């Protein structure tokens, strides 16, 4: 009889704790970029476990389809991708994960897209993205649109937490608004400053902070610089007094350094994603770092 009572007690405890265990079960989110992971973490709070596939200074254009990524997706509930043909490798990963319940969400859906080709695109224009320039997370205003998409996605998986997700988004949006004002104030003295970028990753950033992309080290997106293009760039930098050549850390810096030696323009490395340096730990940190680097370079 005593044994039966103990057994009954165990069953009762198990029954009582089962709903609690279900409630505390985290939503597993996998993202292609660390920027999306950072924003998802803000929105999901302690309701989610999030992991990004592209780490540190990897170029998101050239990620290999690794089965180890499929393993991560196999256990995931939500897969957040940049879309617009940037992370085309996300689709074979999704298929390879064989996860029937995986919700794949394209975070570009609420974005006002820039540089959408209004002409027949072919490789003679370089590596042009058909649906527009995909580096939209580099405008902090777009961070809010991305968060709205993430709220929708997480709410599909955990509708009971929808209000919490909205509250988290609103709190972070407010913080972002304040920071955007600060960043714009910092950049105000450099309005219309001309910068040579390595790759055309920065149109959203340039538009937000009133800069000008005077030219690119790549003559066309994804096309390596030719000697003739370098000569023209050197001439342009000298004629227009351009002070800064900005590049992503994962590109080869030999050509920018050569141009720098010829012109005196300073080469700076701007990480396009969270984790690009050890100090960039979140989405706001990404802009803090890049704005600070630009202000310093343009001030000199």
């Amino acid at each position, binding site marked *: 009889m005593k044994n039966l009572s103990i057994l009954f007690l165990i069953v009762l405890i198990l029954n009582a704790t089962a709903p609690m265990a279900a409630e505390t079960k985290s939503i597993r989110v996998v993202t292609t970029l660390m920027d999306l992971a950072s924003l998802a973490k803000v929105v999901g709070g302690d309701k989610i476990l999030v992991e990004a596939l592209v780490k540190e200074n990897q170029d998101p254009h050239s990620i*290999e*389809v690794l*089965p*180890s990524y499929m*393993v991560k997706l196999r256990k995931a509930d939500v897969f957040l991708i940049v879309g617009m043909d940037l992370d085309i490798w996300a689709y*074979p990963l999704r298929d390879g994960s*064989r996860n029937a319940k995986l919700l794949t969400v394209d975070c570009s859906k609420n974005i006002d897209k820039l540089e959408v080709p209004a002409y027949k695109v072919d490789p003679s224009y370089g590596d042009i993205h058909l649906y527009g320039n995909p580096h939209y997370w580099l405008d902090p205003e777009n961070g809010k649109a991305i968060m709205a998409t993430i709220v929708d996605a997480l709410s599909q998986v955990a509708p009971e937490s929808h209000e919490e997700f909205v509250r988290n988004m609103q709190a972070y949006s407010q913080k972002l608004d304040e920071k955007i004002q600060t960043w714009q104030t910092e950049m105000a003295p450099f309005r219309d400053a001309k910068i040579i970028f390595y790759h055309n990753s920065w149109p959203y950033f340039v538009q937000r902070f009133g800069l000008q992309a005077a030219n690119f080290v790549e003559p066309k997106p994804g096309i390596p610089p030719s000697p003739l293009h370098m000569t023209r760039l050197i001439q342009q930098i000298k004629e227009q007094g351009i002070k800064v050549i900005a590049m992503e850390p994962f590109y080869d810096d030999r050509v920018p350094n050569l141009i720098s030696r010829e012109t005196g323009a300073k080469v700076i490395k701007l990480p396009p994603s969270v984790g690009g340096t050890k100090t960039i730990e979140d989405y706001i940190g990404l802009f803090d770092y890049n704005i600070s680097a630009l202000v310093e370079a343009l001030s000199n």
Partner: protein
Amino acid sequence: MVIITIHLLTSITCFAQTKNPDISVITDFRAFSHGDATLPQEKGELNLNLQEIEAAVQGYLNPYARADIFFAKHGTAGELEIEEAYATFLRGLPWGINIKAGKYLVDFSKLNTLHPHAYFFIEQPLIHQLYFGGDGLNDTGVNVSVLLPTGDLYTQASLNVLKGDFLAGHQHEEAAVVDSLDSRQPLAYSGRLAVHSQVSEYANLELGLSGLSAVYDPHDDLRFLLFGFDYKYKWRPSRHTSLTFQGEALLNKRKIFVGEEETGEKRSITTGGFFSYLNLQFWQRWNLGVEGEWTQSPENKDEKYWSLALFGGFSPMEETSVVRLLLRRQQRPQETAFNAAVAQLVFSLGPHKPHEF
């Protein structure tokens, strides 16, 4: 009414465009010279050849399945062939099962599923030429695969039921005549177990075991078993640099017929071979490597082949074109060793595709 008609036509046009599959064309052009005495017309000369044109049509059929079709034409005089044409059912089946049906490159070893224009070392390995035929292990059949629950390891098990067309190149001529009259090529069966692991932040390793059972001569009921072991290790610390070490070993156990039709006897033989290569990608668009091979003939263990090659490549524009160079020294049974040099230009039209491990 006119407005409605125009609207409908526009909708239909847009619908049609969004439904288009991805279409790409890859061309493999080669210039080569060699000292192979069995090809006297080419020996010592500069030879030019449009080795292959491959057209791919690929896309999703619906939310659950996709289709991949590859047409190929070898040389300017060759016929247009269906290299692969298969549908893959990706979702909706229990336990995450995938089913592939059609004509396809069978997943016996990792390299066999890769199209030859993607080989760093340009030419098909000798063990594939001798044991699978010039087009690789390519057959009509059904593939069923499943992921095994092995935690952080990606472990895939797959089984193939094959029509046996790839064996045509292995049949004796007289047997083939008889087969066409009174016998049918029995089905072949193959399986593969592959394990992939991310061994460090920048390095990945895949190991595979494959097996194949087939009757290569139905007339005399001659069967063979193939066992394969393959590995691929890739260290890629940046987009500019990578080191790949890949290879494959193969063991063949087969019945052969020795002697005349009436008085001969069946015997069992065991043969094998291997290939391996090391490739270093440096400065993003350049690569350099070495490849070595040794193998016995499938039907005679005393017939041995070996080859040693140096290769390099340069991609002027990533994705759309690559120039490769191969310098090879090769030995075949009962022949003197000879040298060969091959230059290859591969260029492609169509959408970029993700890089697979």
